[in-house]
């Protein structure tokens, strides 16, 4: 068996077909076509799809340099947030929210395993969390796109156990597709690119259907005329699905063109080279590029990216930090950790400014998105997660007011829940839930 050199080898498990194919079955549903034609006729701002993204940094921030005051143009951003300065009218800096179920049961994985779902996670051999908010949204809006969500990480997942007896899988995954199964993260930019732009999922389905059709033809030569009638029914169904897949593929391309302004050129991007980029700056930039182009071309509307995971082993020689990320976080109030924090925020700023540069109707892709920056702790040296560093960027198609600093620190516990924020987000995506994680109310002021 010859194998081309760029074929991922068996050992690069990082490429999971599931990541590619999630939702492709649903992608064939017809309602999508209706929405495309609706869009083709009258592109008003309300018709632009809403997108949701999460950018994660592990082990908290330097709390001495993380703050924001004032509103709008007068907003003052602290040192770690300085790269957001040009975009401050389009962000909300939020302080004081928390996930109660991740408090008081141990550090690291026990503080991370349900950041986006707010459920109680299980210790020991059995991994159990909850479906995360990004996957809830992906399940709802993802069927209209080539890939229901893109789940990326610059760092390979860890396995085994933390000494708190919680699985390290909790430290390695933000996005959970079911209560006991995280979405595999894609670490290789080239493979993430392939799965989006190679139409890999669609092509694979077409391959399967082609083969199935060949089988049916072969069979129909061998069976009786009455049986052939039944088989025709099958072949008609196969052709109908193929047709829908094909129409959808074309329609998606047209729709993405119509979604952008005619005179604004679509962002272009070459396929990243195989293998892992050796420099984290390059790696995270590529991942951000993939998210922006996926959002702009409507290949996907939901993304999560771990620039560093919890218990991160990342190194930052380019900003002159000697220790690895996690070690450094134990001295999080020093300059070195400020530089790490600053780097993460700058990557986030890169992502959202790029989205803001992409025209869509009267506004930009960012205006129709909500991109969240989040860490699992506030203070790494004490593993304090009673308040989470949080920034939201983008106005979600005019449904989310931006340019604000929101502080919930002095509120009572029931008004400080991340899950309340998630409920508010899901509302805007048309997902009405009475309860999510530990909350049954919407977050005030959002």
């Amino acid at each position, binding site marked *: 068996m010859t194998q081309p050199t760029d074929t991922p080898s068996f050992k690069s*498990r990082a490429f999971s077909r599931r990541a590619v194919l999630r939702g492709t079955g649903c992608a064939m549903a017809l309602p999508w076509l209706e929405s495309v034609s609706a869009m083709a006729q009258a592109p008003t701002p309300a018709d632009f799809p809403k997108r949701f993204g999460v950018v994660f940094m592990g082990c908290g921030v330097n709390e001495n340099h993380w703050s924001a005051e004032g509103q709008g143009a007068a907003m003052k951003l602290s040192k770690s947030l300085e790269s957001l300065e040009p975009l401050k009218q389009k962000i909300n800096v939020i302080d004081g929210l928390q996930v109660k179920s991740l408090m008081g049961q141990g550090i690291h994985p026990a503080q991370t395993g349900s950041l986006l779902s707010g459920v109680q996670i299980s210790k020991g051999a059995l991994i159990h969390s909850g479906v995360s908010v990004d996957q809830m949204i992906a399940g709802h809006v993802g069927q209209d796109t080539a890939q229901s969500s893109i789940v990326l990480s610059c760092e390979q997942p860890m396995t085994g156990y933390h000494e708190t007896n919680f699985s390290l899988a909790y430290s390695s995954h933000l996005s959970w597709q079911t209560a006991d199964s995280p979405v595999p993260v894609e670490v290789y930019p080239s493979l993430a690119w392939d799965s989006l732009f190679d139409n890999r999922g669609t092509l694979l389905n077409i391959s399967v259907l082609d083969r199935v059709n060949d089988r049916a033809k072969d069979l129909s030569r061998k069976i009786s005329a009455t049986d052939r009638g039944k088989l025709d029914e099958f072949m008609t169904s196969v052709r109908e699905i193929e047709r829908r897949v094909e129409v959808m593929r074309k329609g998606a391309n047209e729709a993405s063109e119509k979604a952008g302004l005619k005179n604004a050129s679509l962002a272009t991007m070459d396929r990243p080279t195989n293998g892992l980029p050796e420099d984290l700056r390059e790696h995270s930039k590529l991942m951000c590029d993939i998210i922006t182009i996926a959002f702009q071309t409507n290949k996907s509307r939901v993304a999560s990216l771990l620039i560093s995971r919890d218990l991160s082993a990342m190194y930052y020689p380019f900003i002159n930090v000697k220790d690895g990320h996690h070690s450094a976080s134990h001295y999080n109030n020093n300059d070195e950790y400020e530089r790490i924090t600053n780097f993460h925020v700058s990557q986030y700023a890169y992502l959202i400014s790029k989205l803001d540069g992409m025209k869509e109707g009267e506004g930009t892709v960012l205006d129709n998105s909500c991109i969240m920056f989040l860490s699992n702790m506030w203070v790494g040296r004490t593993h304090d997660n009673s308040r989470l560093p949080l920034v939201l960027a983008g106005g979600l198609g005019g449904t989310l007011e931006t340019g604000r600093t929101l502080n919930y620190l002095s509120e009572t516990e029931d008004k400080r829940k991340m899950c309340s924020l998630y409920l508010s987000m899901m509302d805007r995506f048309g997902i009405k839930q009475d309860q999510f994680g530990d909350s049954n109310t919407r977050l005030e002021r959002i």
Partner: protein
Amino acid sequence: MRLSVFAMLACVAATPALAAEADLQKQFHETVQPFAAKYCAGCHSGKTPAAQFDIKSYDSLDKVKAEFPRWALVSERLHAKEMPPKPMKAPPQEEMDKIMSFVEAVRAEEIKRAAGDPGIVLARRLSNAEYGYTIRDLTGQDLKVARQFPVDPANPAGFDNTGESLTMSPPLLTKYLQAARTIADHLVLKPDGFDFASHLVQVDSDRDRYTVGRIMDFYRAQPTDYARYFEAAWRYRHRAALGNPNATLATTAAAMKISAKYLPMVWGILNEKGAVGPVATLQKMWLSMPAPSAKTLAARLAPQVQAKAVQMRDFTVRIRKHTAMQFESLKIEGLPGQTQPLQNWRLKTYAANHRKSDPAALRADNAPPAALPEIPKYPGLHQDATPRWNTIMAHARATNSDLVYPAGQREQYQKAFDRFASVFPDTFMVTERGRYWPDESEDKGRFLSAGYHNSGGYYRDDTALMQLILDEKGQRELNRLWDEFDYIADHTQRTYTQWFFNNSGVVDGKGAESGSPRPTGHEITETVVINQMRDKYVAKALADKKNDPGAADAMRQEFKRIDDTLRHVERERKASEPRHLAALVNFAERAYRRPLTASEKNSLLAYYKTVRTKNRLSHNDAIRDSVVSVLMSPDFLYRFDLSATASAAQSGLTKAATNAPAQPFIAEKLSSYSLASRLSYFLWSSMPDAELLRHAATGDLSNPKVLTAQVRRMLKDPKVKGLATEFTGNWLVFRQFETNNSVDRERFPTFNDDLREAMFQEPIRLVQDTIVNDRSALDLLYGKHTFVNPPLAKHYGMPDVPGDVNNWVRINNADKYGRGGILPMAVFMTQNSPGLRTSPVKRGNWVVQKVLGIRVPPPPPAVPELPNDETKTDRPIREMLAQHRSVPMCAACHSKFDSFGLVFEGFGPVGDARTKDGAGRPVDVSATFPGEVEAVGVPGLQQFIRDHRQDRFVDNLSRKLLAYGLGRSLQLSDESLVDRLNLHMANNGYRFGALVEAIVLSPQFLNRRAPEPAPLQKADLQPAVKFVKTAQKGN
């Protein structure tokens, strides 16, 4: 007996009878049509014909034949003088007689002409139920993917397993595609093929769950309880008194299901002479076990013996716990003891010393009590946990007086402890490790973990199990599981990588929580990188003279182990790819339920190659995608009945060639694989298993002896639950009850999902028991037994059944509680109640139509509705119905079934026993059956059926099971077979198995109707490759 039936059924009489045909034509046009126009068409024609029977639509003899059962009913109702109904004038008797004899003549003629016609059995896709069972047997996992599929429609016979009703549509095919992908996402590649896990296999933790789970299952299944060995030694010792004078240690071990390798060692130490210390103490306990004699029966001694054996075990375990060896990590200046090579050195040392006794554990009887230091707190990160554990052990040892030796006898005692430890290891295997191991008070549930800080990692320590318990086969199996752990889950590589990034920085003088940066120019898993890291660690070990002298070597060994393992796994993966392709072909053959032709095989492999190269999939994903293509193939999704002689063209027979228009069909023998599938989908609702396919391959399946033997085997298999569920569920129309939501749970709070599921399962359990034990089918009607689980027992007011909902028990005297057999089952009572009241009409109609198979015309369009809430009526339902029956038009039908329902009035709307109805009025369960037979309650109904309707039940069961087994509605030409089936039942004690066998041996089942001649280009149905069954799970 049964073989002669086969012979009987096999002779097909099909003589041309043109004359008779012409005569019938004449009768139809000259007598029947004028009669119908005159007496029937007034009601039975037009836009809304009464009983939906438009007699004018039958304008030819062929149409009468096509829907003969309706004409049989015409005859029946004329005979009973029910038609035309009462106020109308009855036609002259002789005219009616002509019609009845016409119907009979049609029947007789058609039976004569076409008996044994296999009929047209359409190609059919798997029903949802069949799809689910087939996936279960194909993958070995009950993945329940078919639950998402839309509900299948049923054919006129009421079954959802036929091509008549099963259609394909794009939405359904889309569901199939999703299901196929989901199934493929459970696939695990193994060195010798592939397997499916019960859960998704997508991320590392999934692969860990699969591999760790298998090893833990293996460990848990091992006989490592000392008490069992002590009991076995007692049994062997008293073998003569226990009635087994020829027993050996080996046979005793086999009988006790313990290790035949280990028992002799235990026996040896229990019987050796001159023992002191723990060996002597144990022997003393062993000798004090009571001896059996003629007076004291062994059975009565068992509890005493077992209690003693447990005491001996507890003694042994305690001694060994307190005399276990203790080791600290090697000391290297500047490295924490948890550094992986050092930690592994320690774990390895432990693994090598489970059968040694720590000399430090013993103390002389004249020694002053040792000063015991306070137990320290749990140490911080990167600090050694051994001092704490040593102190805990010192405290424990101090309380154990069995560790004391008489002053001056140290040597002799130490020897005894050594001997003791050599037979009784302190542990057979280590299954959980936390950071403080061997202190296990924390960190539970980390199975097979090496106990590293902040990183994964597994460590195998089962030396004592390997040495003492496992025979060669067991050792091989366990080694294989650990080898595959690396092959599947790559744990050595992942552990090394995590450690590299998270912990190895310390060797460069960085913090203990820091790792090394990603190497440039090389993958981290390459030998050169591993060796670079090794050299750093070795240098560190040699850097300080105070370091443990063996440390450098420990480092070298550890890195060599990592490199060796990684390289081994790489090679193994490469080498196994062709085996996966062979497994793929094998999988397709099982999925298609037949061998692949050479070209089919090539095209499957070509598909793999395409997705691997063109779509750039990894090997793993290309295999998964190929599995998807197999599961989407019509060969898997459809069942085609192919003939043994390949095709119509080859058979050389065509309808034209026979030149006999009266001979309506040509029967062809089914191919052996088609027969195997027909049989397995009939009896299991699933694919044929390996044995059945073997018979198909050798071609002896159509041999009646072989076929009968297979039927009997299959009816004993638990998979026959498929038949019990699908056949009974559709026959008695409760298949959808599992999702029934029509009960008002506020009014009936005891009705919850558990009870609903229990109700659904009850008839299935009873039928399955009837099938598996080949009982009389009449037990379904008259049996005094049933099966209940805890919620159902409670619902029925029976004594509590212990355990959870899966604990089903047989109740022999269910009649004491008004139950027994299918008739009074709660599921039918509930299903046939319209919410807040009972419905004698629905219940009676169900008994008459479904159980007994007596056809009742559908109700006229405008019948008055009864009130839907019993509590709000002023009279009992029985009285309202009596009034309804006083109208002759209504009585014509209602008198046929009301009485069958009234006897159930003792059961409320959810099948609960009751003495008063919803409004508090006493219920009356008496009824007057047709023929003025008075009866009371369910026993009265059972007696009435036994006396007057049993034949109808048997006939109905024959028809229903035949229609289900053939996968088509019955036709007139099946009548003589039905008659024979009924007779065969009666002659064989109504055994369910007898009915199944007679159906399977019938020409209808064994043959197919030859297709209409059609130009065929190619007919290569005979497999080009021989069907070879290789190792694959799932049978």
